[in-house]
């Protein structure tokens, strides 16, 4: 299991998600829609998707741009040293306990300051293969989130790993599940399909021919 480099630490949380505070340079910034894990003290692990990356206003940079010229040292200092203060919103999609994955919401939210890590291929593959894609409903239930974009980003990430593992029909199964869940919500379904179409996941028709 790839532990990965810690993204940040939980600031505030509830049963359905949390906000992570961190300072990351642009190179290491986590991806929108990417899957993350929060190891809890009891050995279990909460899984979530990144639904928002909020970069706060930087007063200093605003000042710097008013100067006549900016020295290369200052530019480098800002590019590499001055970590952008970032708040990452995470939506919980399930958890793992004693080796088995669950797509239910975690029984307890993470306490403040628990570290968040990007998920490795094995975790992503394992979690998304377990059960019957039930975790998708957490994403669909969220309000005020760009659901279509999150799903597209997630399917792209998980789909690539599933294809690599030889499960060529995972993307199709996930798509089908989404269509089923959204069958009565025409507007949302349309938006979701539109963003899925943009992922180019469906070009060759997958490896399930």
């Amino acid at each position, binding site marked *: 299991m790839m532990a990965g480099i810690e993204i940040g630490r939980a600031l505030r949380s509830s049963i359905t998600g949390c906000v992570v505070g961190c300072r990351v340079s642009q190179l290491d910034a986590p991806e929108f829609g990417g899957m993350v894990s929060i190891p809890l003290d009891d050995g279990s692990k909460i899984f979530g998707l990144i639904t928002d990356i909020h970069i706060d206003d930087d007063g200093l940079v605003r000042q710097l741009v008013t100067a006549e010229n900016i020295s290369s040292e200052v530019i480098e200092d800002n590019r590499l040293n001055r970590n952008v203060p970032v708040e990452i919103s995470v939506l919980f999609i399930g958890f793992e306990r004693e080796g088995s994955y669950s797509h239910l919401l975690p029984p307890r939210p993470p306490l403040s300051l628990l570290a968040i890590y990007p998920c490795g291929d094995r975790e992503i593959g394992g979690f998304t293969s377990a059960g019957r894609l039930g975790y998708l409903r957490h994403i669909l239930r969220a309000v005020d989130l760009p659901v279509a974009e999150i799903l597209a980003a997630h399917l792209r990430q998980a789909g690539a790993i599933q294809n690599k593992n030889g499960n060529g029909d995972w993307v199709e199964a996930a798509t089908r599940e989404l*269509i089923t869940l959204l069958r009565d919500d025409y507007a949302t379904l349309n938006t979701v399909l539109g963003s899925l179409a943009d992922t180019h996941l469906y070009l060759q028709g*997958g490896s399930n021919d």
Partner: protein
Amino acid sequence: MTENPGMEGKNIGYIVGGGLRESLRVRLTVDPQEVQEGAFVVVESGGWSFYGLVTDLALGATDPRFADEQSEERLPAELAKLLHGQTLYTTLEMLPALMMETGPEPGSPAYMEWANAHLGGDEKVLPVKTIPSHHAIARLARSSDIAQIFGAPGVEGNFVVGTTREQDLAVCVNLKKMIQRSAGIFGATGSGKSFLTRIVLAGLIHNDLASTLIFDMHNEYGWDDTASDTNTKVAGLRNKFGARVRIVGLGRDNTVRGQTPDFYLEIGEEDITPEDIELLSRTLNLRETTPTTLEALQQSFGKSWFHEFSQMKVGAVVEDENGKKVPAADSVAYWANQNGVNVAAAEGLRSKLSRVFNLPYVVSGQMENALQTIIADLSAGKHIVFSFGKHESDLDYLLVTNILTRRIRETWGKRVNEFRSNPGKVKEPRQLVVVVEEAHKLLNREMASQTTFSTIAREMRKYYVTLLVIDQRPSQIYDEVMSQLGTRISGWLGDEDDIHAVLSGLAGRDALRGMLAHLQPKEEVLMLGWGVPMPILLRTRRYDDEFWKELLGKETEKKSPEENLKTLGY
């Protein structure tokens, strides 16, 4: 040989709604083009198998917008396909007809119990009384299903009339059961009725289940014919069955297709009753006064009324003592005055009846010999094809068929009574099927009470005589008679009333109406009614050499002289 080997027994969908009164609704899980109206479908649920026909297909969508929008233009093909698979669907309506207990899974503990309970009993096929559960799987029929319901093709008494359209599975009809009641073969002109009739007759003749008296109005059945549209040879019953089939011509010197019939029949004047004439009211345009006049004639002359009347002259006058013109003694008027019959009526009748009097096959006396021969042949198990030859008018048809059938039925009636009184001593009469074409001319509402045919239809099998009516205007047939018909085999019908008529007397068959109008002419028929376990849509078998080969075995193959020599051992 199955055209679609993958189709047999294929799952096509699952039950989503419907009920006993309405049809069952099935959500299709295959492309709609794989199933057609009329397909024979089986649903297994709760230990029962339900058998039915597809009567309607309809497109649906979980939301009409999915149907309206061409998402395949907006989305990649694969994605659109997934979307459509969930949101666009086809529902088919299945008319359930029969059900049968299938019991639990063989090998399960419950199975032993069930098997013991049903030991020795036949699995019974019942009219449908309950319905399958939600989501029960619907599938196309297998050959075992067809065999279960309609009988297996190899078994004796089961005659293959056609195949299911989807999978080409052979469907049989039990001819013995079929002829227990009068039956009908219907279809618009050109829909292949006569071919179907030939097939059924071939089956009857070959299996020796009854004698048939075929009134061959258009000279189609006896000798080889040529199909009008394809110009191919159509085998005749006589050609195939040889001496078992006798061709009888109407009137002497009447050749049928250049061939001489085995014997001919002439109608005797004394065979014609007033009722026979009344039957011709419309054809001859007789007036309401006719019955009175006829009765008077019968009163006057008894059995020879016909002859006498034919000798009377219309308008014959003589001069009397006073030089006044008075009706001659041999005039119609004279007789009319003598018997208190309206002169004008009588004269009118006489004029109109000249057509009948002039019929070349109407001769003096009676037709005893020919008739007896016919009866004897029929009793002996032979078959009569009664050809009208050049006498093809309605008048000929109506008059002759009615007289003949009346006489034959009388004979049969007597024999049956004798048999019933002395079952040990008297031989059981031979079952007789009278085959009439253009049945609406004989069985319409006006004539329904008057012809023997309606009597036969109503009596059913009481006197061992049933009808096989062939008609293209079933709506013209008196519905009381129609409802007495058992098996009905119908080809394509265009007229609403005709469709309605074919289905009359059969409960809850609204679902089948559309099907009759969608049949492929010359290819497909719908078979339903008393003699058939459940309605079924068939692709009729072809009436060709293949058919004859199968029916009769290899003997009918025309062999070359060389081959013949070979079989003889040279």
